[in-house]
């Protein structure tokens, strides 16, 4: 799924804000805490996907850009690691062992009253081609992920979306 040019422009300016505090290529990514603070930490990304090979590819791309990657291979493992590791972002596959696992992970995560609720980037082979659309702008109501990409993702595009989400950007949901 390609983003509209204006959205990519926003993503780039979000990235530039991050770059201000540290060199982007050294991969230190997201600044936690008060903007302008001198402390920088590596952002932590939790990937929930039962495909170990796909996880390996994602890990290579994300670690190469300086992120810390945590892998969960099932919905339950995902919920456990969410609690344990407090990731800054979750990358979630919609369909895992059972077709509905991705959905249930998201619902259970959002339903928990306390704790960490990081943004969710959902990634799947499902797209409009299959007659379904899982975009926050059209289906936000029943699949409340914050953003959506189709597998396979171009590595540069993946990193753009990750940076934008970590910087606080959220694609708009359809108002009607």
């Amino acid at each position, binding site marked *: 799924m390609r983003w509209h040019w204006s959205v990519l422009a926003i993503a780039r300016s979000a990235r530039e804000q991050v770059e201000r505090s540290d060199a982007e290529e050294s991969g230190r990514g997201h600044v936690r805490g008060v903007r302008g603070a001198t402390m920088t930490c590596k952002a932590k990304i939790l990937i929930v996907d039962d495909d170990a090979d796909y996880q390996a*590819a994602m890990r290579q791309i994300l670690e*190469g850009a300086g992120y810390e990657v945590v892998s969960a291979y099932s919905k339950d493992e995902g919920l456990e690691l969410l609690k344990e590791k407090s990731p800054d972002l979750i990358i979630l596959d919609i369909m895992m062992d059972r077709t509905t696992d991705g959905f249930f992970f998201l619902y259970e995560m959002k339903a928990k009253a306390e704790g960490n609720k990081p943004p969710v980037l959902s990634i799947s082979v499902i797209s409009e081609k299959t007659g379904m659309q899982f975009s926050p702008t059209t289906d936000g109501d029943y699949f409340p992920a914050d953003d959506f990409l189709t*597998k*396979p993702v171009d590595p540069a595009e993946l990193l753009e979306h990750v940076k934008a989400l970590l910087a606080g950007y959220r694609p708009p949901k359809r108002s009607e």
Partner: protein
Amino acid sequence: MSHQGLSQTNRTGNGSRPQVLVVDDDEAMLDACPQVLEREGFRVIAASNGADALDLMRHQRPDVIIVDLKMPGMSGEEFLREARQVDPEAVAVVITGYPSLSSAVEVMKAGAYDFLPKPFEAEELRIITKRAVEKRRLAQAVAAVEREKRRMHDNFVAMVTHQLKSPAACVKECLDAALRSFAPEMPEPCRQLVERAAVRSQLLLKLMDDWLTLARVESGAVRARAAPVEMCAVIQQAIAAAQEGPDHHQVAVQFEPQAPSAWVCGDEQTLRELFVNLIDNALRYTPDGGRALVRLSVERETVTVCVTDTGPGIPPGDVELVFEPFFRGESARGTQGTGLGLAIVKEIAEAHGGRVLVESEPGRGATFTVLLPAGEAQR
């Protein structure tokens, strides 16, 4: 009068013994018909009036209904109309003491399959009931085939999507990740092979996407989402999307709409896909520095879009074949396409009640013309 109790297994009056419902206020008929029919192996339930008969129908699913046209209270015709609501597929035979052409017509209009004039022989009743049962079986078989086709189609989509696309997507992602991280360190022959693999796996994914699109449009899924669509905007979006494709930025695309707006009734996303495919096709066959032209015009009932390229053109023998799935003619050598683009264009045009035509001469490029029925503007 045998009244069978509530039974789920009766629901489709299935296979073994067909079930017949007899509705007649005449006691003699209620006595004789079941006897005649049961000897043929039918199960028979009976009612002396329309209301009772409808009650029976709500609990069971008779294959055939034999009903007298003239009854006190609810007439045979009224009963049939109600019966249609309960079971639109029940096959009805009407018994009438007043056979005439006009009453026959009335009866058929009320949804009866056939009629039997009184008085009739047992043999006539048997024959007509058997024929009615056969008709019912045929309708059920057709419905079952439709369901199976639907199931297979849904499974096909699910299968292609998950089972085939998942591993293909994984391969592409691994190759992309490897190239991104390690290309500079790879020996050149290694890097080239990995590049080739990445490109081919991308094409493989596009092929699956195209195939899914074709299946989706052929299945009629598109018709369900019809709404007013403004084509000038759609075409501009399609041009932008097609130009993002690999190696396409060296060819200019000129859009010449002869109207400020053009409305069609259909599915916006699918219509956009039609033009992305058509323009992508034009770009693929137009040499660098060349130009593709898209013209739009609106007559009262038709929106016409012509896409012209300055490529090598299509040999006369191939012109009829270009819309066939997987057809790739001589001029396609050296380009990378799935062979489904034009098949998709044709399928989408036809799903919208339109057509696509092609004119070409070797060496003089090609013009594809899409004709779509004009629709109402969105208010």
